């Protein structure tokens, strides 16, 4: 089987409101930077392009089609799209390469969540007969999940506050982060509750922006002469859409996906976990069995800025960054989708050979 490498990652700043910018205007600066990083001109220089976005976020039908204007698609290119986080676009691209239909792929995700009321918009991803008509928003569902954790004594509010404080501090070194600062758990605990038991700081912010990754076969990465990380395993598993049928205090799908991706085959230096709520990071790190030897969310994670449909891809990109910077030899990137960690993807990244 062909080994697949990541050779580039770029992300825009996470901003609370990108103003008038449309999807093309959000994407194009990020693509310009990744083309420069990889040393290519445009999408003509890769074999496949796949994007992730969701038209519900900004309320514009077929926005992803207009996003193609950012690519340079004349003459026509091979292009695909997922109405999901672009981490799943990366998954599709890996399949494309493994099937021998491509040697390289550009993956990008973008989200402009500011035009709508995101927690309400996301209620429309729920089961359409029983849950969506009740307008159950994502924060309420997460709050119920956190309540179960607290009542069962699995976590404390201080544990949650520690997650937030670490995110804020780590984000100081992330130029694209939206929320950052030298704060302590006590500062967080002093905040009033928002949707009990969650405080505002337990919830990721609403952000606008985009990110992009370029992957290719290891042979191609060597030919391009770029530093790379190898995607040694990837899997994704989805749980029932009925939250009542799941153990919300655990993430069985994350654990299984990690096992299938081969996470247990070596040590994990770094983990980037897509936890939109502080207590979910605790669920995820326990499901993955992470120890203190693993640095969790050195970027600050999505509590520092959450680009819907791009943050999952960015988790993979952030692990790539740590590996090519020499801070880590092996890392795990996690992506989630759906309410209360319903659908989870885990990718394992390893250091590439030194060129």
């Amino acid at each position, binding site marked *: 089987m062909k080994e697949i490498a990541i050779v580039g990652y770029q992300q825009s700043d996470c901003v609370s409101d990108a*103003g*008038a*910018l*449309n*999807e*093309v*205007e959000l994407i*194009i600066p990020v*693509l*310009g930077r990744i083309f420069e990083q990889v040393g290519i001109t*445009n*999408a003509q220089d890769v074999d496949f392009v796949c994007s992730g976005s969701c038209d*519900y976020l*900004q*309320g*514009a039908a077929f926005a992803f089609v*207009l996003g*193609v*204007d*950012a*690519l*340079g*698609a*004349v003459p026509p290119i091979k292009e695909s799209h997922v109405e999901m986080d672009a981490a799943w676009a990366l998954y599709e691209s890996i399949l494309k390469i493994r099937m021998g239909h491509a040697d390289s792929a550009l993956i990008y995700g973008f989200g402009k969540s*500011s*035009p*709508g*009321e995101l927690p*309400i*918009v996301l209620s*429309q991803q729920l089961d*359409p*007969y029983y849950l*969506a*008509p009740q307008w159950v928003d994502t924060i309420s569902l997460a709050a119920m999940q956190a309540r179960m954790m607290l009542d069962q004594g699995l976590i404390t509010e201080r544990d949650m506050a520690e997650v937030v404080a670490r995110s804020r501090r780590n984000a100081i070194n992330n130029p694209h982060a939206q929320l950052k600062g030298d704060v302590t758990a006590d500062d967080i605990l002093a905040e009033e509750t928002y949707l009990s038991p969650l405080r505002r700081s337990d919830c990721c912010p609403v952000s606008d922006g985009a990110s992009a990754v370029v992957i290719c076969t290891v042979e191609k990465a060597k030919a391009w002469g770029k530093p790379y990380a190898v995607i040694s395993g990837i899997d994704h598993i989805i749980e029932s859409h009925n939250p009542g049928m799941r153990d919300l205090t655990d993430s069985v799908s994350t654990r299984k996906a990690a096992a299938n991706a081969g996470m247990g085959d070596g040590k994990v230096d770094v983990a980037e976990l897509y936890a939109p709520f502080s207590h979910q990071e605790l669920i995820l790190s326990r499901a993955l069995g992470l120890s203190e030897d693993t640095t969790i969310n050195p970027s600050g994670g999505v509590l520092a800025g959450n680009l819907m449909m791009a943050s999952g891809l960015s988790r993979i990109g952030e692990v790539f960054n740590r590996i090519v910077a020499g801070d880590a030899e092996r890392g795990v990137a996690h992506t989630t989708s759906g309410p209360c960690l319903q659908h989870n993807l885990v990718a394992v990244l390893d250091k590439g050979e030194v060129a």
Partner: protein
Amino acid sequence: MSEENEVITGIEVPIFLKYNFTAGASPTRFLARVKEGVLTGQRCPKCKQVYVPPRGACAGCGVPTEEEVELADKGTVQSFTIVSIPIPGNPIEPPFVVANLVPDGANISFIHLMSECDNADVHIGQRVQAVWKPEEEWDYAMDNIKYFKPIDEPDVPIEKIGKLPVTGLEG
């Protein structure tokens, strides 16, 4: 399932989502000029094609289009259709002409209505000009132009459609 149960074939679940939609930075500039009665396009720095209405990028080259150019309100019919059936929600009574029009100075067509013409005479290469609403009704909208009407200028040869300077065929 008991046979007495009525088969449910649908439920009503109305969805209301409120958005503060924005047109995009480039379309915003375009619409601001349309409100002043001026059509503008944006030129690609690589292939030099002029897009109207601009969206901020050259779809061919994948690069930002920043140079803004004024266009004429005269143009050429690139293609057209005669709509003979009523379109739901459209107040215009059929038959009417919908045309792909390239304004002088641009390379890409946009779609608008044609009127003040005999539908049977409409043809590719025909020269047209915008008929604007009264100035006091101008808004951030393409229907500041009511429609395009034929003008007394020679037809544009097929190979020159979409390639005219802002001064037109003679220019």
